[in-house]
């Protein structure tokens, strides 16, 4: 690849707004970013793509001049930025007082977690007005009027009332809108969005991204979008820069990157991205080889095999009419006045060797169902049967045995492993608890065997969890489930926090283990594309109730319920040739909290096709 071929092919001859050349950032001895070049013209969106640790956030912080306060140094390179007032300046050598004037006014940043970006003790109106006053001066009254205008611009419903609210009173999506309003308050020429939607539900993500795009079209600002979500890149970016281990490995217009990736890493990344609808014509999910990078060369591992693991006969788990309510508000004498109806009449069953995906957005009650199955939440009403035996009728010994048969894998593998114990001890924990093996040597051998089985080196059994990467930690959690000889694994967002290439490996690992050991999974997720890849059946939950349940092909291929359709439509398509135009509506998922004595209406499910049930509208 020559330098000219790598230059972004923007037709406009506009002068670049930002030109980064040879940027090298060091944190102590470690070089986080090595010699990166970027260039961005006004009105365009540049996506910076890479996995955690690739240096993409460090690049953003460098442009914001925040590297010194993060404890690093910009060792080499220049970052020329075209300011509105001072002309072209080099951000790399700009003294902090001048940088402060640029930051927020000319370059604004939107962070991943909106709650931490907002001050919890000030109202929304105060915080936005404060930003305006700080950078542009003027009267407090004018600033407040402008704040109102900004809130309307980011389509927050009832903007007037919103000015007086506090951050904790808003939902995640609303908070991110407020953060965007704040970022826009000084009409920045460059907007840096660092994983702006990673913490949000998929329908909210779609809303926020289309809002950003509209704002860009309106104001002509340039956007640097930092993300690991290739679907998002395909839908929004004009140009793409791919980072790998602190180096730029590929650069080009979005169409070229997706159609003709050059570097092995880009190829692997694109290969790993699950695409909704790519298995549309298959009845059963199937395993597929994934590309991995092994010391600079790409290698395919795994095999293509249909996941025909479901056994007919009696189900391994059956949930009947499950109700879980939590009191959240009480009156003066302690009687509950409000309850969250986390699960309201949930029915589902799982066959041996089957993966049932439970899909929904935050607050839908999907995790509560998982916890009830794990005996971590006591249901208010309803029954759960494991192999035909009701939980309620079980003796203490049977319940203990059940804790071995049903095992959880959580979203955050680091938090679910005790940081003070070696990973070998953690894996061996269920063996000790249930007395599965006797003798130190036997247990040690078993742990080593399990580590090898999930793709880890057995000799690392005496390391601690923090020494592993995210994907490896999730492998450790899977090894622990295998140590328990679990037959049903409740995987609650188990791959959601992982980089896409790692995600693909873990999904393939789970599927292989299912085939080898006829494991059943309750796969709780909000990611439709991953669900399609791995699930045999899909259940969609909304406000504590199942609105649609059926075989994967039916639910994903021909969804009947409006909510399922909305959920599927919101999934970004990782193909820049098929961009979907979305309207930026601002609808919110209503709360599952209700007054006592006012239970939600129970939905009735109708069978529209064999095994495919949909709630009546």
């Amino acid at each position, binding site marked *: 690849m020559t330098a000219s071929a790598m230059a972004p092919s923007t037709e406009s001859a506009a002068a670049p707004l930002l030109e980064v050349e040879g940027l090298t950032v060091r944190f102590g001895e470690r070089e986080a970013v090595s010699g990166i070049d970027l260039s961005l013209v006004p009105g365009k969106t540049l996506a910076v793509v890479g996995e955690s640790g690739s240096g993409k956030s460090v690049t953003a912080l460098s442009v914001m001049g925040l590297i010194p306060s993060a404890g690093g140094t910009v060792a080499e390179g220049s970052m020329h930025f075209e300011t509105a007032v001072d002309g072209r300046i080099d951000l790399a050598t700009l003294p902090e007082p001048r940088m402060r004037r640029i930051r927020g006014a000319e370059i604004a940043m939107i962070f991943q977690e909106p709650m931490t970006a907002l001050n919890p003790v000030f109202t929304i109106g105060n915080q936005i007005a404060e930003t305006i006053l700080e950078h542009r001066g003027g009267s407090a009254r004018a600033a407040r009027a402008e704040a109102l205008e900004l809130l309307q611009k980011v389509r927050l419903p009832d903007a007037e009332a919103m000015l007086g609210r506090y951050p904790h009173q808003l939902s995640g999506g609303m908070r991110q809108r407020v953060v965007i309003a704040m970022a826009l308050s000084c009409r920045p020429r460059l907007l840096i969005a660092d994983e702006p939607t990673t913490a949000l539900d998929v329908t909210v993500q779609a809303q926020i991204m289309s809002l950003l795009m509209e704002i860009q079209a309106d104001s002509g600002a340039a956007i640097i979008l930092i993300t690991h979500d290739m679907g998002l890149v395909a839908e929004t970016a004009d140009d793409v820069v791919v980072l790998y281990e602190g180096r730029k490995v590929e650069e080009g217009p979005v169409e070229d990157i997706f159609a003709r990736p050059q570097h092995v890493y880009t190829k692997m990344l694109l290969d790993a991205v699950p695409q909704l609808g790519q298995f549309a014509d298959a009845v059963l999910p199937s395993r597929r080889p994934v590309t*991995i990078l*092994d010391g600079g060369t790409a*290698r395919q*591992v*795994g*095999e293509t095999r249909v996941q025909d693991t479901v056994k007919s006969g009696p189900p391994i788990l059956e949930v009947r009419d499950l109700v879980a309510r939590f009191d959240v508000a009480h009156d003066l004498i302690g009687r509950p006045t409000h309850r969250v109806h986390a699960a309201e009449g949930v029915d589902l069953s799982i066959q041996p060797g089957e993966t049932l995906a439970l899909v929904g957005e935050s607050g839908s009650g999907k995790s509560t169902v998982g916890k009830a199955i*794990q*005996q*971590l939440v006591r249901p208010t009403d309803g029954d759960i049967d494991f192999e035909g035996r009701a939980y309620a009728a079980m003796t203490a010994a049977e319940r*203990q045995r059940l*804790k*071995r048969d049903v*095992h*959880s894998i*959580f979203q*955050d593998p680091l*938090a*679910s*492993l*005790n*940081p*003070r*114990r070696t990973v070998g001890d*953690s894996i061996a*924990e*269920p063996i*000790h*608890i*249930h007395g599965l093996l006797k003798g130190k040597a036997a247990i040690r051998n078993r742990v080593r065997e399990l580590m*090898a*089985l999930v*793709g*880890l*080196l057995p000799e*690392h059994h*005496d*390391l*601690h969890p*923090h*020494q*592993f*990467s995210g*994907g*490896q930690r999730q492998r450790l959690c899977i090894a622990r489930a295998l140590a*328990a000889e679990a037959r049903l694994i409740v995987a609650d967002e188990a791959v959601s926090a992982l980089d896409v290439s790692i995600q693909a*490996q873990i999904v393939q*690992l789970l599927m*292989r283990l299912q085939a080898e050991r006829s494991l059943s999974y309750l796969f709780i997720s909000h990611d439709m594309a991953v669900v399609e890849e791995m699930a045999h059946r899909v259940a969609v939950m909304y406000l504590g109730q199942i609105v649609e349940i059926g075989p994967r092909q039916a639910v994903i291929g021909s969804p009947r319920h409006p909510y399922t359709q909305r959920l599927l439509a919101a999934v970004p398509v990782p193909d820049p040739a098929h961009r979907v135009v979305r309207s930026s509506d601002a609808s919110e998922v209503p709360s599952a909290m209700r007054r006592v004595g006012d239970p939600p209406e129970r939905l009735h499910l109708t069978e529209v096709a064999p095994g495919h049930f949909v709630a009546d509208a």
Partner: protein
Amino acid sequence: MSDLFVSAPPEAERVKGPGVLRQLMTKPTSAVAIVILTVLVCFALFAPWIAPFDPSQASAGPRLGAPEAEHIFGTDLHGRDVFSRVVWGARYSLPVGAATLLLGLFAGGALGLALGYIGGRFDAIGARVVDVLLGFPAIVMAILAVSVLGVGLVQVVIAVAIADIPKFARVIRGATIVAKQNLFVESALAMGASRARIIVLHVLPTILPTVILLGTLNLGGAILSTATLSFLGLGVQPPTPEWGTMLSDGREYIRYAPWMMIAPGLALFLAIISVNLIGDRVSEIIDPRSQGRL
């Protein structure tokens, strides 16, 4: 397993190895602290050989004599050698302080752990009782306890320990509640781990740094509290050379013979600060997550 990508942890270089003591010695502050504490402990162990005079021998030198070659820390009202008394004082002050602390920490820790882990109504009532007890100044509690138990060294240890229980119970209760909320505790519960197993393997190791920090920060306080009781005539009886008693002995002569307070005060100060520095460092070292940052 040919289809599997076996990956090595990014931080596989094992930082296993140097024991806690070796690691303590690698940092100058904790190394100095260890040296000082070792010297003080040697004082306690080998007092008869180190001290040049008998600590209770009157007229070993002039009365209220200033420091000089023979009496490097001077002499007190009765002409006793202050340096010898400081050396012998380590025999009383250090073990009494440590015993007091361990007793209080054990009892308070057990109470706090039970309150925090069991929770519910037991905690609601227990925590209020602890709060009420915290309302009394610890020294008043200790005097109350001594008046019940009687005067003497052992009684002082028990009294000060009892007075410290509410303080320790409260901090450990808080740490336990935080530790209990860890996802790895929930996942152990889901696996069917017993209460004892969770406490011993998951909660205790998690709160251990808090316990160590609490202990080292309070060791000085424990030494001071026992000294205070001795000063009030409720603990170690004169002429026993104890640092606290020596401090109060010297108080009246601070204008004429400041060395009478400076020497035991310095010993007390060095003992407390070195214990604190070591404690700080130890709680860092025993946390495996800090290994990479050493």
